[in-house]
C-alpha cells in the first residue's frame, strides 16, 4: 500500500470511505429491490386491475326502440331505419383547431356552423365524452368523412337508427315524436337509466310509453389504447341491449284515415270510441304535423317553427282543447229531467222564439219559435226556450252541475296520452271563488244550453255518450291495447277495460234518452244531414255561438247502431269543428260519412263516391 503513494493514515481513511460508498450503493439497491418487490408482488394484483381498467372503456350499446302497430297488427306505424350519428370528442382536438374542424364538419354535414357551436360549447372543450353533432346522417356522408378522417380529428360515428313514422297524417298527435335528451331532461331522468345522447319521447305515445319503448341499453367493455382506439374484440362480459317492447294501439288506421279525410282541412277534431271497452278507434286533430321532420332537420328549429304557427299544430284538440258543448249538452239536461222526474216529459211548453229572464232576453235559434214541444221534441229540435225553462225553473244549477259530473265532465278521462285537459263545469261556488261575484240566473240560462263558462273536450263528450250507450257506466278511454315482445310477438301485457264512472241513473232513463237521440236523426235537426243507410244513428247536434257573426262551434255527438244488443258493434263518434272555419255545419256531415264508412267498411274515397249525389257533397264540389 505504501508504494501506491498514500500514507498509512490516509490509506486507512480511504478504506473507510471506500466501505462507506460500497455500503451506500448496496443499501440503495437493496431498498430498491424491496420496493420493487412490494410494487410488483405485494401490490401486483391491484396494479394489474388498474392496468386493465385504464385501458378499459365501457361503451353503451343503444337499444333499438320498440315499434308501434295499430290494432290490426300487420304493418308498423313507426319503425327504426338504419342511420348514423356523428360525434366529436372535444378533448381530443387541440382548442385552436376546433373552429377549423367545425367549419369542415358543417360543410360535409350540410348544417350551419352555429348549430355545431350551439351543441359543443366552450365549457365542453375539455370533455373526453363523445358529443353528438348530428344524427340521421346517411351512410354516404359517413363514408366521405371516413375517407378523409385525418382532416377530422376527434370525430367518430355510431349507429343511431332514425325513428321513421310511416303513417304521417293525423296519427302524429297520437304517436308523438322523439328527440335527443337535453341536459335538463337528464338531470331529472338520470336515475331512471337515461344517458347522454339517448332518445326521449317528446309527445304522444312516444312520451307516455317511453319506458316501455326504449328498451335497455347494452354495455360493451372495450380495451382501448391511449388514443381511445379499440384494440380488442368484444369480451364475454358484454351485456347485449334489450330491444324495446312493441306496442299495439287500439287505433284502427283505416278508421283513423277515414276520419282524418272526413274532417278535411278544418280546424277541429274527431273521436271514435268503442263504448263497451273504452278503446279509442280514431283520434284526429287538425292541423297535425309530420314527426319525421324532426329527423331531417334540427329538432330545435323545427319545434320553434311549428310552435309559432298560429293554428297550433302541436295541440291535440281532441283532448287538449275544451269548448262549450253547446246543444250537445242538452243530452245531459234531458237525462236529468227524466231521472229526477222534475217535469212530465210529455207535457208541452210553448216556444215563442224568445224568453225574458230578469232584464235580459234569451232567444231560440228559430226566431218565430218552435211552438208547443214536449221533452223528446225539444231535444230533436234543440229548442233553447224549452231547456232554459227546464234549467231555471225545474232543475236549478246544483242539479245541472251534479249530472254533468256524473257524466265525467270537468274531470280528465285518464286517456293514456300526456297533457289531457279537464275542461270546466262551473258552479256557484266556483264563480264566487274565481270571479268574486254571485251566480246569476242568466248563468243558469247559459249552462242550460251548454254555453257560458261550461267547457268540455271532445273526448269527454264521447265518453259521456258512452255512458248513455252503456246505460250507466263508462270506461277509461285507452290507446295502447297490447304490449308485445319485439322478437316473438308474444303478448306481454293486454290492457283490460277499467270502469271510469258508474252512475246510479236508471237504465230506463238512458233508454228514453237514446230514443230521443234517435229522434234527432229521424225527425230533428240532423234529419237532413245524417243520411247514411248503412246503420241507424242516434245523436245530437250542437251549434254554439262563438261571440261573433256567422261563426259557430259545430258539434255532433252520436253513436250507432241505435238499437243493438251487440256491444262489440257499437261505436261513439264525436266531431268538433272550431268556429274559425268557414261556416258549413260540417260536424254532422263528417259524422255521416264516418258512420257510413265504418259500417260499410269503405274508405273515404269509396264513401264520397257512393254518396256523391248527397246534397252536402254536391255543395262541396260546387264550391271547389
Amino acid at each position, binding site marked *: 500500500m505504501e508504494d501506491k503513494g498514500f500514507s498509512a493514515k490516509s490509506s486507512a481513511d480511504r478504506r473507510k470511505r471506500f466501505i462507506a460508498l*460500497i455500503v451506500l450503493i448496496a443499501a440503495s439497491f437493496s431498498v*430498491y429491490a424491496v420496493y420493487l418487490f412490494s410494487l410488483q408482488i405485494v401490490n*401486483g394484483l391491484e396494479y394489474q386491475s388498474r392496468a386493465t381498467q385504464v385501458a378499459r372503456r365501457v361503451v353503451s350499446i343503444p337499444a333499438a326502440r320498440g315499434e308501434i302497430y295499430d290494432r290490426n297488427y300487420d304493418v308498423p306505424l313507426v319503425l327504426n331505419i338504419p342511420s348514423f350519428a356523428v360525434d366529436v370528442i372535444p378533448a381530443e382536438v387541440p382548442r385552436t383547431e376546433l373552429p377549423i374542424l367545425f367549419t369542415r364538419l358543417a360543410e360535409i354535414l350540410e348544417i350551419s356552423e352555429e348549430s355545431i357551436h350551439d351543441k359543443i360549447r366552450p365549457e365542453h372543450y375539455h370533455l373526453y365524452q363523445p358529443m353528438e353533432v348530428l344524427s340521421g346522417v346517411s351512410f354516404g356522408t359517413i363514408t366521405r368523412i371516413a375517407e378523409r378522417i385525418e382532416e377530422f380529428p376527434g370525430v367518430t360515428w355510431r349507429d343511431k337508427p332514425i325513428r321513421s313514422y310511416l303513417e304521417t297524417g293525423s296519427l302524429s298527435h297520437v304517436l308523438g315524436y322523439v328527440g335527443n335528451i337535453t341536459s335538463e331532461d337528464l338531470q331529472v331522468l338520470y336515475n331512471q337509466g337515461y344517458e347522454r345522447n339517448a332518445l326521449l319521447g317528446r309527445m304522444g305515445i312516444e312520451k307516455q310509453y317511453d319506458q316501455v319503448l326504449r328498451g335497455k341499453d347494452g354495455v360493451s367493455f372495450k*380495451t382501448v389504447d391511449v388514443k381511445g382506439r379499440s384494440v380488442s374484440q368484444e369480451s364475454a362480459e358484454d351485456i347485449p341491449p334489450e330491444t324495446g317492447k312493441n306496442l299495439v294501439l287500439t287505433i284502427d288506421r283505416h278508421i283513423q284515415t277515414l276520419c282524418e279525410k272526413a274532417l278535411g282541412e278544418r280546424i277541429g277534431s274527431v273521436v271514435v270510441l268503442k263504448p263497451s271497452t273504452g278503446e279509442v278507434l280514431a283520434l284526429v286533430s287538425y292541423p297535425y304535423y309530420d314527426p319525421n321532420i324532426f329527423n331531417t332537420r334540427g329538432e330545435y328549429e323545427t319545434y320553434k317553427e311549428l310552435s309559432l304557427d298560429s293554428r297550433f299544430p302541436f295541440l291535440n284538440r281532441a283532448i287538449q282543447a275544451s269548448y262549450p258543448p253547446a246543444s250537445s249538452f242538452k243530452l245531459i239536461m234531458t237525462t236529468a229531467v227524466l231521472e229526477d222526474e222534475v217535469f212530465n216529459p210529455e207535457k208541452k211548453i210553448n216556444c215563442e222564439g224568445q224568453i225574458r229572464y230578469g232584464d235580459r232576453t234569451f232567444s231560440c235559434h228559430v226566431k218565430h219559435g218552435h211552438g208547443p214541444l214536449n221533452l223528446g221534441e225539444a231535444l230533436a229540435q234543440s229548442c233553447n226556450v224549452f231547456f232554459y225553462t227546464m234549467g231555471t225553473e225545474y232543475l236549478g244549477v246544483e242539479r245541472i252541475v251534479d249530472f254533468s259530473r256524473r257524466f265525467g265532465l270537468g274531470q280528465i278521462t285518464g286517456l293514456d296520452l300526456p297533457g289531457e285537459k279537464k275542461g270546466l263545469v262551473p258552479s256557484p261556488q266556483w264563480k264566487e271563488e274565481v270571479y268574486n261575484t254571485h251566480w246569476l240566473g242568466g248563468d243558469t240560462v247559459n249552462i242550460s244550453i251548454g254555453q257560458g263558462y261550461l267547457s268540455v273536450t271532445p273526448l269527454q263528450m264521447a265518453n259521456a255518450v258512452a255512458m248513455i250507450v252503456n246505460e250507466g257506466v263508462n270506461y277509461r278511454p285507452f290507446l295502447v291495447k297490447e304490449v308485445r315482445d319485439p322478437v316473438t310477438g308474444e303478448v306481454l301485457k293486454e290492457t283490460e277495460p277499467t270502469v271510469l264512472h258508474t252512475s246510479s241513473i236508471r237504465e230506463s232513463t238512458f233508454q228514453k234518452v237514446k230514443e230521443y237521440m234517435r229522434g234527432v236523426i229521424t225527425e230533428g235537426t240532423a234529419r237532413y244531414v245524417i243520411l247514411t243507410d248503412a246503420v241507424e244513428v242516434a245523436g245530437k247536434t250542437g251549434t254554439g255561438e262563438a261571440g261573433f257573426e256567422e261563426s259557430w262551434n259545430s258539434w255532433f255527438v252520436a253513436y250507432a247502431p241505435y238499437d243493438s244488443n251487440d256491444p262489440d258493434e257499437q261505436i261513439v263518434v264525436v266531431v268538433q269543428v272550431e268556429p274559425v272555419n268557414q261556416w258549413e255545419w260540417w260536424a254532422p256531415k263528417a259524422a255521416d260519412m264516418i258512420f257510413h264508412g265504418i259500417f260499410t267498411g269503405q274508405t273515404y274515397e269509396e264513401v264520397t263516391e257512393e254518396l256523391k249525389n248527397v246534397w252536402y257533397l254536391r255543395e262541396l264540389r260546387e264550391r271547389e
Partner: protein
Amino acid sequence: MREKSLFNMDIYIFLSALALMVIGILFIYSSGVSSEGVVFSNEYIKQIIWAVTGLALLIGFSYIDYNRLRDYSVYIYGGCILLLLITLLFGQRVNGAKAWLGIGQLGIQPSEFTKLATILFTAAFVDKNKGEITGVKIILQSLIIILIPVGLILLQPDMGTALAYIPVYFFILFAGGAKVRYLSFFLVSGLLMILLGVLPEIEKEIFLENPPLLLLLTEKTFFSWLLGALVIISALAVAGYMVFKKGYFYWLSWAALAGCLGLLGSRVFRHVLKSYQIKRFIVFLDPGIDPKGAGWNVIQSVTAVGSGGLTGKGFLQGTQSHYRFLPQQSTDFIFSILAEEWGFLGGLVVFTLFLIILIRSMSIVYQAKDNYAYLVGAGITGMIFFHTLVNIGMAMGIMPITGIPLFFLSYGGSSLWMVAVSLGILQNIYARRFSY
C-alpha cells in the same frame, strides 16, 4: 494474482454492460411495436449502431493512458463548456430544452459528454491540490468547476441533467479525502435549498392550503426577518467559537450557516425555476394533483411496473406500453416497459447487472495505481450510481421526474457513448493497476 481477463479487461463489467445494452435494444424494439404487432419505429436499429460503436469506444479508450487524459483534461473541460455555450446559442429545442447540437437528424447532447469532462477535470484539480484536501478552499474551488456546467445546463433548461453533476462532485471529494464536516455542510445546505424551494409548492399543490408558517418563505418581509435572525445567530455562534473554542459553538455555527445558505439558496431556486418546473419536480409525491399532465407519466409508469408481477406479461405483451399509455418508453421509462414485460425477475436481473458494474468499479477504484485514477474512478462510479438510482426510482414513482437516462438501456447515442467511454477509462485504470 491476475484476474481473468480478455484484452486485459475486467470481464465482469464488460459482460454486464454488454448484457444491459442487449436488454436495452430488446426493449427499445418492444417500445416501437404497436398493439397490432406492427413495428413502427426504427429506434432499435439506431441503438444497435450506437451500441456497437459504443463498444468500440469502450475497447478503444481502455487502451488510452488515463494520464494522457489528465494532461488534456483542462482542454477537454474547456471545450465542453464552449460546446454548452454554443448549444445555448444555436442548439435545437427538444422536449422544451435547448440541449441538442447538430444538423438535421444527426445531433449530440453536449451536456452528456460534459459530465465525463467535468469528472476528468475535477479529479485532476483535486489530485493536483491533494495536499490541501482537508481545507475548505479546495472544496469551494472544485464546487465552482462543477457549477459552471450546471449553470449553463440549467439555462437550457434541463434540471435533471444539471442535478446529475452534484453527486459526481461529492463522490470525488469524498473519495479524495475531503473533510466530512465540510462536505456534509454543503450537502445539507443543498438539500435544504431544494427542500425549502419546493415546500411552498408542495403545500399549495398537494395539501391545498397555505399554512402561515410558509409565509416565512414566500413573503419578502417575513423572509428577510427569518434570514436576519439566522445571520445574527450565525454571527453570535461564530463569535462564540472564536472566543471559547468550544465544540458546540462550532456545530451551532455549522447549522446556522447551513440554514442561511439553504434559505438564500431556496430563494434563488424559486427565482431560477418556473412554477411548472417545480410542480413537475414534486408531482411524484402525489401524481393525482395533475393526472392528465405532469402526473400522467408517474401514474402510467407505476401502473406498468406494478402490473408486471413476478414474471411479467411477457416480451412484447405489455399493455400499458403497447397501448401507449406509457410515455417516453424507449428513453426515460425504459425500465417501466422492462418491469412490465419481464416482471420482478427481470427487474432483479437489471439490478444485479448494475450492481456488478458498480461494485466492480469500486473495486477497480480501490485498487487504482494512483490518486488521479482513484478520483476519476470514484466520479464515474458516482455518476453511474446516481443515474441508475434516479431513473429507476422515477419509474417506480419514488423519485422526481427529471428525464435523466438509464445508462446502457435508454435510447440515445450521446449517453451511451459517454458511459461506454467512461467504462473504457475504468478498464484502462484496471489494466494499469500493476504498472509502475
